[in-house]
């Protein structure tokens, strides 16, 4: 096991820069999630750590040792590729065993690890099948099993749960975290699913356009997103972002007024759906646009007179019909303010 440090990592493909000036410190035994939209450079970053891509600039250090120009096989990495890559002519069992070809584990220990992985990922009845005979989700589970039987310096998992059904995904989320904590193995887990990121990571690194937007614990990322991008990307349903202006200690946007102590100027107000409330009167006048009933609660989507949409969380029993008028108002103590240039400028003290 080892800590991984990326030092000003840059990776270009021709004129296109996929990863730019990335500084990242994964401590020994940490579960770090790389979160970001499609094409933001997550896989490229992972491939650089594994040694499959050569960085255009910057360094990669394992436990302080520079491995930037080391070939993949000397880095002792276990990896799940994004496409659930397996050797096409080998059965699932042979694929999993191929991972242990170079290990010096005793035969009983190998057997035990393989059996554990097989039962954890519920792939017992797939072992004799070829990849071409499996579904995408089954391939992903076999690829994950193939990775976790190893005893590597670090696990690099590229969206290993993306093709699974909701129930299995939920089970495996917990299983993978549990296994990682038991083994204490440094893990970099890539996903574009923010729920996965929030539930699994010790820390989350949010990437956008090849750059690191913010790194922090899930609650830091959730409570104090450093930029508008992070604010909008993390959280489900997403945060409401309202453009407006601060003057005389009051945020104003259209008919909305929120008392907030901040420097005057154009800003964006961010408020999570659970901090936006329905008022009898005196709030922002809106009409119901849609109701999404989730069972435990209901997401209410409303539209103000300027046709801006806002989301708020209300109780499951909320009664209302599309078109009904109502007033909404944010909880001023839970509002964030963002500046276009410098990001977060005001957050509730906690």
């Amino acid at each position, binding site marked *: 096991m080892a800590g991984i440090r990326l030092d000003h990592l840059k990776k270009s493909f021709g004129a296109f820069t996929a990863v730019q000036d990335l500084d990242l410190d994964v401590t020994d035994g940490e579960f770090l999630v790389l979160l970001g939209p499609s094409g933001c450079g997550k896989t490229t970053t992972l*491939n650089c750590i*594994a*040694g*499959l891509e050569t960085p255009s600039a910057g360094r990669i250090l394992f436990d302080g040792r520079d491995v930037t120009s080391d*070939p*993949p*096989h000397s880095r*002792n*990495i*276990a*990896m799940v*590729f994004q*496409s659930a*890559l*397996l*050797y*096409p*002519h*080998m059965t699932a069992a042979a694929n999993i065993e*191929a*991972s242990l*070809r*170079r290990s010096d584990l005793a035969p009983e220990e190998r057997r035990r690890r393989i059996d554990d992985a097989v039962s954890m990922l519920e792939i017992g009845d797939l072992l004799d099948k070829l990849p071409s005979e499996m579904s995408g989700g089954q391939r992903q589970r076999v690829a994950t099993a193939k990775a976790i039987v190893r005893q590597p310096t670090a696990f690099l998992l590229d969206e290993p749960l993306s093709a699974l059904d909701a129930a299995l995904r939920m089970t495996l989320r917990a299983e993978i975290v549990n296994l990682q904590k038991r083994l204490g193995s440094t893990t970099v887990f890539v996903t574009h699913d923010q729920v996965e990121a929030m539930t699994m990571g010790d820390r989350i690194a949010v990437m956008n356009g090849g750059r690191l937007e913010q790194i922090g614990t899930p609650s830091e990322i959730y409570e104090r997103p450093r930029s508008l991008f992070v604010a909008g990307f993390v959280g489900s349903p997403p945060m409401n972002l309202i453009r407006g202006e601060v003057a005389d200690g009051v945020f104003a946007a259209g008919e909305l007024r929120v008392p907030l102590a901040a420097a005057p100027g154009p800003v964006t107000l961010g408020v999570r759906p659970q901090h936006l409330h329905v008022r009898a009167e005196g709030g922002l006048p809106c009409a119901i646009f849609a109701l999404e009933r989730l069972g435990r609660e209901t997401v209410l989507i409303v539209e103000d007179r300027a046709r801006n949409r806002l989301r708020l969380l209300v109780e499951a029993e909320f009664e209302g019909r599309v078109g009904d008028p109502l007033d909404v108002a944010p909880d001023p103590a839970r509002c964030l303010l963002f500046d276009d240039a410098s990001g977060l400028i005001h957050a509730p003290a906690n």
Partner: protein
Amino acid sequence: MAGQVTSTGRTSELSNLQFALLMALPVLLFLVLVVAYPLGYALWMSFQQIVFFGGYRTNFVGLANYATMLGDDKFWWSIWVTVRFTVESVLLAMAIGLALALLLNRPMRRPGLIRTIIMLPWCVSLYGTGIMFSYLATGQTGFATAIAFFFGADRPVSFVNRQWVIEVLAIGNAWNMAPLVAFFLLANLKTIPTRLYDLAAIDRMSPLETFWNVTLPPLRFTLFVFTCITTVLSMKLFDFIFVLSGGGPGTASAVMTYQIYKISFRDLNLGYGAAQSFVLLFLIVGSTMTLYALWGRREAAR
């Protein structure tokens, strides 16, 4: 309901089998004409003694021609020469083809030009190949002689001798065949996702293991097909050997086709020649069937 409709409609229609037969009729006729008739005629000849001198006549001799073979040393020798030539040709053609394919699959500056150059040997007729290799391998004009003289030797080096002539033939044959093998293998190589090599690197496979587990599997079916094709072509090869060595020196390169030619058209023993042709035919069919049973079935199952 639907069943009734079709069954009543069928009275005026052809069944699938009838239709298929009707459609295949021209091809069947053609095959009978160009394959079955000569084959049948040759089979008939193999049971005859055919005499040209003193008036052409044929005597039915039953299996006598086949029986003669059993005690004919030249016949057994020709089988051995054929097998040796075929095995060497196949191994060389596959090895050279594979090497060329791997070479062509590397990034290079003028891929189109290099591919064209490598393809050229296949465009040379076997007759031409025979003449060229005969010049290259014999003492007076040979390649080896040139090299030997360069290093100060004063005697020509010839490979067209009892010991090496089969290898010279096999190399020439493989030289002609390998480019085609290479191109089909190259097409297979292009289908391998490069990420698979990354996976092998992550699994810390050695270059040999990577070749065995990543590169070779998608090539195996093509290798099987070309092993069969090269086997058949090598066993029935005649013109190339006729031009290069004429079955010699002595009988050193008297393959079955050459032996059959000599018996049929020099000794004019058509019946015996026909009988040997049938043995060759069975050898060819037998070896491809064996190849399929031992190897092809497994590949086709993938």
